[in-house]
């Protein structure tokens, strides 16, 4: 079924009923759930993705490891991707003439641990249906115009793999420090709707 968004009151009542059922079954308490959500939001930040991207820009060997095994490379920098759910990270690199875009057409799968909670447009029916059918127009609406000969690959996250785009390092940043590079990396750049 497509997502038919019910009223927030309806959703909120269902969440309350679900939490009450978990409490009654002694699985967890509402207080424990709140603490877990808080811990998750504190650790799941776009800064994590930026850390990986900037390191890959300055360290070619790390870049190769990141593209080969995202989970292991993230672990090198202290990021445990399997902490919340057993997902595999695949990082896909933009290159001259090659662009990548991430979507989840079935629901809203997203590399939460690296990018934080997803933006509402990422979960919209419009983005999810149009990103696969006409990515070039979608990108243009984000202000990202690619040359006609650019090969675009759209990654539809249909199973347990979570995707992140490794943007190209911007021109003119040869002398920038890794910390300065981190500040240039944007969330949309790591989804692929923007260049960096």
């Amino acid at each position, binding site marked *: 079924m497509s997502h038919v968004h019910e009223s927030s009151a309806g959703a909120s009542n269902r969440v309350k009923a679900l939490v009450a059922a978990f409490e009654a079954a002694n699985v967890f308490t509402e207080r424990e759930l709140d603490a877990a959500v808080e811990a998750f939001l504190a650790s799941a930040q776009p800064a994590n993705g930026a850390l990986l991207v900037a390191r890959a820009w300055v360290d070619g060997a790390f870049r190769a490891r990141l593209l080969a095994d995202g989970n292991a490379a993230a672990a090198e920098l202290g990021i445990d991707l399997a902490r919340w759910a057993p997902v*595999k990270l695949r990082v896909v690199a933009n290159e001259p003439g090659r662009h990548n875009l991430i979507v989840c057409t079935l629901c809203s799968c997203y590399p939460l641990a690296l990018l934080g909670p997803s933006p509402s447009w990422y979960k919209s029916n419009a983005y999810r249906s149009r990103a696969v059918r006409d990515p070039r127009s979608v990108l243009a609406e984000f202000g990202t115009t690619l040359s006609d000969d650019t090969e*675009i*690959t*759209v990654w*539809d996250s249909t199973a347990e793999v979570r995707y992140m785009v490794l943007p190209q390092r911007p021109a003119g940043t040869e002398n920038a420090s890794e910390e300065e590079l981190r500040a240039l990396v944007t969330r949309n750049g790591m989804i692929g709707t923007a260049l960096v």
Partner: protein
Amino acid sequence: MFSVGDRVRTRLRNPAGHTRLPRYLVGRSGRIDTVLGTLPFSDRRAAGVRSAKETAYTVRFAAEDVFGGDADPRGSICADLFESYLEASE
């Protein structure tokens, strides 16, 4: 089992329950991009079989093979699909 580079076609199927094969990729031809190994098999797990696992692959489809001649000739779509969704294709 399929290997990287194999041509595959997604089976024509419209199950009543949960599936991770998007309808827009039903009956389409593509090529194995990556062998992902054994993953939790969502279709069976949604039906209550908590331990269900199946081999999965990243499959690359040319945009034209999915959306027809007015699609971007240089575009492609990659999706992560379970073995039972796929059959060999020449």
